[in-house]
């Protein structure tokens, strides 16, 4: 697929129009006279928007570029702490909110750049473990900081609660449009080619190191911004919130939505959050359900047994190919 400038512009305009319509509908539903989305649901909508941004960032890294990262929550925490630190020391107004969010994203991006240079040479599961290690190191370092600086293990509070629906929605929408655009640009095509086959794309003149770094930094930049909004959404952050489990939760969204599928990511975030609301009194059952879904989806999409193939044909599911070299056992 080759996208010229015109189709790309068309596609972004389409995306922006869709976003505006969704925004208007949400706003109308939130009117106190209609009150379909009451303040309780409004907090969930905000949570969904934050998670969409996080998951889209991870999808850019893992789904589109094929670099398996398990440290996304670490970068989110960098953004959250940067923004919280700024907001605790500055007065809260729109300008400082935007500055703090951007600062969160940029600091996360810089750290990702520094981490990415050595680790993105690693492949597949090794990269996953290295990013997991970095995520944990970031968390532990924040935990050992001085109480007056970043709060240490006890966490940082009270952060002014400045995130509102407009801010998080615009953030998620911008993130979606950006990643949609990246996908349709030459950068996006080279990212996909790196996922499909590193050596083939390298021999076609794609600078794979640069492409991987670009995807990694861009994805973590969004994670940082989402983290910033998260700190202004909950008002209290502690290192424990950004552990390995959080990274896995984001990964789960990306996998359930379909690796490399940004619309799917949005849908999966919404569906998983709705399941979460329905099962909010049964947190364990929710996690058991997620885990089962993860296993079943993976087996259905990549399994090789005859009955799985039969099921796949019956349900008309296409076999998913990660394509990356290194089959399990080869």
């Amino acid at each position, binding site marked *: 697929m080759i996208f010229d400038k015109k189709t790309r512009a068309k596609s972004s305009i389409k995306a922006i129009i869709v976003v505006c319509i969704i925004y208007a509908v949400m706003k109308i539903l939130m009117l106190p006279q209609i009150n379909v989305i009451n303040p309780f649901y409004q907090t969930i909508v905000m949570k969904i928007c934050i998670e969409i941004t996080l998951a889209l960032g991870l999808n850019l890294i893992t789904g589109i570029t094929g670099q398996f990262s398990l440290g996304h929550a670490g970068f989110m925490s960098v953004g959250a702490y940067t923004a919280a630190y700024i907001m605790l020391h500055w007065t809260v107004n729109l300008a400082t909110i935007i500055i703090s969010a951007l600062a969160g994203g940029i600091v996360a991006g810089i750290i990702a750049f520094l981490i990415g240079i050595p680790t993105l040479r690693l492949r597949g599961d090794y990269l996953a*473990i290295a990013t997991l*290690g970095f995520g944990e*190191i970031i968390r532990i370092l924040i935990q050992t900081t001085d109480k007056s600086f970043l709060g240490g293990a006890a966490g940082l509070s009270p952060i002014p609660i400045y995130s509102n629906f407009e801010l998080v929605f615009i953030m998620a929408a911008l993130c979606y449009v950006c990643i949609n655009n990246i996908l349709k640009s030459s950068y996006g095509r080279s990212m996909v080619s790196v996922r499909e086959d590193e050596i083939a794309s390298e021999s076609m003149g794609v600078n794979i190191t640069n492409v991987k770094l670009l995807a990694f930094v861009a994805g973590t930049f969004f994670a940082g911004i989402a983290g910033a909004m998260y700190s202004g959404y909950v008002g209290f952050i502690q290192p424990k919130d950004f552990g390995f489990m959080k990274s896995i939760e984001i990964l789960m969204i990306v996998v359930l939505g379909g690796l490399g599928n940004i619309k799917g990511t949005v849908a999966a975030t919404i569906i998983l959050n709705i399941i979460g609301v329905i099962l909010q009194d049964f947190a364990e059952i929710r996690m058991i359900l997620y885990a089962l879904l*993860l296993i079943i989806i*993976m087996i259905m999409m*990549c399994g*090789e047994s005859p009955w799985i193939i039969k099921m796949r044909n019956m349900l008309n599911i296409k076999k998913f*190919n990660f394509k990356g070299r290194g089959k*399990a*056992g080869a």
Partner: protein
Amino acid sequence: MELFIQQIINGISIGSIYALIALGYTMVYGIIKLINFAHGDILMIGAYVGLYCVLLFKLPLIPSIIIAMILCALLGVVTEKVAYRPLRNAPRIAVLITAIGVSFLLEYIMVYFFKANSRTYPTDFFSFGSANIAGITIPIDKMVVAGITIALMILVQIIIKKTKLGKSIRAVSSDRDAAQLMGISVDRAISFTFIIGSALAGVAGVMYGAMFTINPLMGIQPGIKAFVAAVFGGIGSIPGAILGGLLLGIIETLVSAYFSSSIKDAVAFAILIIILVVRPSGLLGKNVKEKV
């Protein structure tokens, strides 16, 4: 000096537990190239089995360990059959994600049935007093841990090197297709690997649980640490896992004794990343060239 030697002994005891878990990781990685994220949770199940052996049947250490070994081995085989076997030829990342799913499943099933709160073994289950050797007090339970570990490692080494099943495991690890052509049952070799690895995790679970507290999420930390140990020593290599586990345990206890216990995990991960970047094949691993 006395403090230093005591720390080394502490390090060896925790390190030998890491080594036990790392053995399971390294064997499974060696045979199906899968980072078995659920391995730490099998350790957790082992700890719970041990706890209930003690609480319900008042069993002493060794029988509890044996029961934990058997049940964990069963669990390991079942997870392999149900979750990993259909993905035998699937991309590695797909299997890795499935392993994460299995890990979550085990954790939250345990949270659901046994609640998330921490529990401890009865204090008299795992205390043997301490011995005084050359003016240095050495707690005997630490020695017991190291002793059991060494015995099991010798056993595993004998199984791998001397028996027919061990031979088939080694054959399947080095080349699955060729092994199959020679008439080796690949499925059986893989199942047997999971049996050995999970049984070792069960032993480690009982000892880890007796040394610390247990809860359904306890497997994550030792699981990741043991993986670090396996990579440190060279993943796929059995002596490497033992060396990596012991070194990691000693480094960790020394860091927490002489610097701060809060950064010991960070040091473990820093080691992991340095090893991955500088020498991905680990201390004792073989360097494998990748073919295009």
